[in-house]
């Protein structure tokens, strides 16, 4: 049976070149980077080289990068670290309604435990934040605004530079969760005008378990993990050296190959989207039609349940998702789809395909062959489908 994997927002394979670069750091080059003898100093140097590579990918300086265990930790460090470091300035946080849970719940933590006020900034039907609305909501006590760069469920890319400029003018820190964009589109922290930016390894072909936070020089951050001298005192714990090496190598490869990858996945995604829209009736293409991740295709299909669709696609060797990897397990209607105004009965039929560099045109054609038949079968016994009412 043919296998087609199009759930790269959930997980990606580690690139061969990345794995090869990492392998020596499990055994031969095992030294602790904080040690003051040769084999420790050597590893410390390796880490600093990787910091430079990650910084180069996003137009930052090496000293502005702190390595983390994931994008979720980077988001937590940004939100909790910046809010705690600026607790004397105020007690108001703004996040958009479509943020990842690692931002939403970090903000809610302050609301529930520390008497902060959190404003959830609404989005329009494409998932876009309104800059004017943000400008109205920022006030003197606002310490942080966090709005994601690209949404992993609907693919929409936010106009971050304009939103960040509003906050810069008002002296408020601005963070963006760029987990879905770094590795998929060009990202430059100076063009985006942000104070902090989160990224993670898998979209670049690096392993799980490694991420990073960019923080503009002189941005104060309270560490989440107190410890020793690692990461300039901003994150305790002996460094995940193989992971850091993997992220550095993947960042280096991505810098060189991104234009080609972006073009490739966009072409495939366009073929997939037009093919699906032509073949299936009563289907909604969610998110912004143009300002979106190049390899991201998301739909809501009327009168079926996304989970049933996933299971039947699974039987055909097709792997996709209903939304975010963690939310789909909760069997709950996606808060992102609710936020963009998709009715609950339609949101249940959510399906998301996320493509990467290894996907091919024949794989897209295989989906176009199988998906309409699966949808037709599911609709044939759906009490919600118009022909059955």
């Amino acid at each position: 049976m043919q296998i087609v994997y199009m759930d790269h927002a959930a997980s990606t394979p580690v690139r061969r070149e990345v794995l090869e670069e990492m392998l020596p750091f499990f055994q031969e080059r095992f030294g602790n980077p904080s040690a003051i003898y040769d084999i420790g100093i050597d590893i410390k140097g390796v880490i600093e080289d990787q910091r430079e590579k990650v910084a180069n990918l996003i137009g930052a300086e090496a000293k502005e990068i702190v390595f983390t265990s994931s994008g979720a930790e980077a988001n937590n460090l940004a939100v909790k670290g910046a809010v705690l470091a600026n607790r004397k300035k105020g007690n108001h946080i703004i996040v958009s309604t479509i943020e990842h849970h690692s931002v939403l719940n970090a903000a809610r933590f302050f609301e529930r435990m520390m008497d902060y006020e959190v404003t959830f900034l609404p989005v329009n039907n494409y998932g876009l934040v309104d800059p004017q609305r943000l400008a109205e909501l920022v006030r003197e006590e606002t310490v942080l605004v966090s709005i994601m760069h690209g949404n992993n469920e609907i693919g929409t890319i936010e106009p971050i530079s304009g939103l960040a400029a509003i906050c810069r003018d008002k002296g408020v820190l601005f963070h963006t969760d760029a987990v879905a964009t770094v590795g998929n589109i060009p990202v430059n922290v100076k063009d985006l005008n942000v104070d902090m930016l989160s990224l993670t390894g898998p979209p670049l072909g690096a392993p799980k378990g490694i991420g990073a936070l960019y923080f503009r020089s002189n941005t104060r951050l309270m560490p989440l993990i107190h410890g020793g001298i690692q990461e300039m005192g901003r994150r305790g714990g002996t460094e995940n050296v193989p992971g850091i090496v993997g992220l550095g190598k993947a960042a280096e490869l991505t810098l060189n190959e991104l234009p080609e990858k972006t073009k490739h996945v966009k072409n495939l995604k366009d073929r997939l989207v037009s093919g699906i829209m032509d073949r299936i009736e009563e289907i909604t293409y969610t998110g912004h039609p143009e300002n979106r991740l190049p390899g991201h295709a998301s739909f809501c299909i009327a009168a079926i349940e996304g989970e049933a669709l996933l299971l039947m696609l699974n039987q055909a060797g097709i792997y996709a998702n209903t939304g975010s990897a963690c939310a789909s397990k909760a069997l709950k209607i996606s808060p992102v789809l609710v936020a963009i105004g998709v009715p609950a009965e339609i949101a249940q039929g959510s399906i998301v395909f996320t493509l990467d560099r290894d996907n091919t045109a024949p794989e897209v054609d295989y989906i176009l062959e199988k998906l309409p038949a699966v949808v037709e079968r599911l609709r044939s016994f759906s009490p919600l489908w118009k022909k059955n009412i």
Partner: protein
Amino acid sequence: MKFVEKQAPDETLDLVCRMCPMHLLEPGDKIKCMKKGQILEVLTDYDGALDDIPAWCEKCGHEFIGMEEEDDCYKLYIRKAK
């Protein structure tokens, strides 16, 4: 402790939120890149620095000029002596 006011530092090192031993490691790295006679300002909210920095200056041969207390941090001033 010697208190001072209105110093004119040549370099500033912001170590607020970062704790022991960063208040001893980072000034050492920073001061290496400075010229003799220049003043380094260290911002910290770590109480231990109030004892450690003057002692570190004495050990390394730099002059500890004094400190100023701000609302959210201490400002410690060091003159590079060699």
